[in-house]
């Protein structure tokens, strides 16, 4: 059990950005490990929304990643991207594409800073337009996600 209850802070530094900040009660090499190791990612990435069914990580510049989640409601959600910069254990830059809307490419810069044995994780997510950024927030992996998945399913069914 975690002894700290820190909530993630979300701010919007610019029209096309989302900044997520969260503090962890651990040195950063452990946060890095939890953040980049496939079987560990599988345990947290889904949050409360479902079960992570697949995690592929090829952690090298130009390497790709792909995470798949089966949501509690039964539908599947997948994201993938490419690693652009890796400096363990402090900085990771990767692209992020939601496969339900692949035209909206995000660039996520994750930074880990350590102080007194605690680590602050920041994720700066940058999108090609404000519309894409807003859509990411709207999805929130909650109701909006369900709607877009339903829409996607209908399209898929119609293509059969």
């Amino acid at each position, binding site marked *: 059990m975690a002894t700290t209850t820190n*909530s*993630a802070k979300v701010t919007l530094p610019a029209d096309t950005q989302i900044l997520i900040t969260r503090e962890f009660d651990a040195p950063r090499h452990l946060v890095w490990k939890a953040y980049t190791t496939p079987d560990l990612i599988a345990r*947290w990435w889904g949050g409360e929304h479902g079960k992570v069914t697949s995690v592929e990580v090829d952690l090298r510049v130009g390497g790709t990643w792909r995470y798949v989640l089966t949501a509690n409601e039964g539908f599947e959600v997948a994201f993938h991207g490419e690693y652009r910069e890796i400096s363990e254990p402090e900085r990771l830059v990767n692209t992020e594409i939601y496969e339900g809307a692949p035209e909206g490419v995000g660039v996520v810069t994750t930074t880990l800073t350590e102080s007194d044995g605690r680590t602050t994780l920041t994720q700066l997510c940058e999108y090609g337009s404000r519309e894409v950024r807003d859509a990411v927030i709207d999805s*929130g992996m*909650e109701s909006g996600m369900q709607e877009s998945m339903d829409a996607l399913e209908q399209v898929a069914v119609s293509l059969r």
Partner: protein
Amino acid sequence: MAAMARAATTTDAFNAVAEPRRREILDLLAGGERSVTELVESLGLSQPLVSKHLRVLREVGLVRVRDEGRQRFYRLDGKPLRSIATWLAPFERAMSGRFDLMDDVIAELKAQEEDNDGDDDQLGEGHAPG
């Protein structure tokens, strides 16, 4: 109207708070009403620049203004900000849910590292979630 098209970049609260200096002004005003002079001093910016930012904040309804004698006072109006907070809340909850689970993973890693006396190259298997 050309002026409208140009103004569109700052006519909503989302855009107005995107500018770091304007967020600083809002932070100061969160502590209570301030005169322009006080804001200029606290921010270390020129008065015309501060006035420019205040004008933008006023246009989107984030600040209210009051004149008293020769002084002009500004105070925060949180309503437009609350709508951002409301909009962000589900996303923030989703992220929090994710990082709360990460806390558990990290707590385990920490315990393992302490057991191994600082040797962290072995990661225990068999820790079923939940």
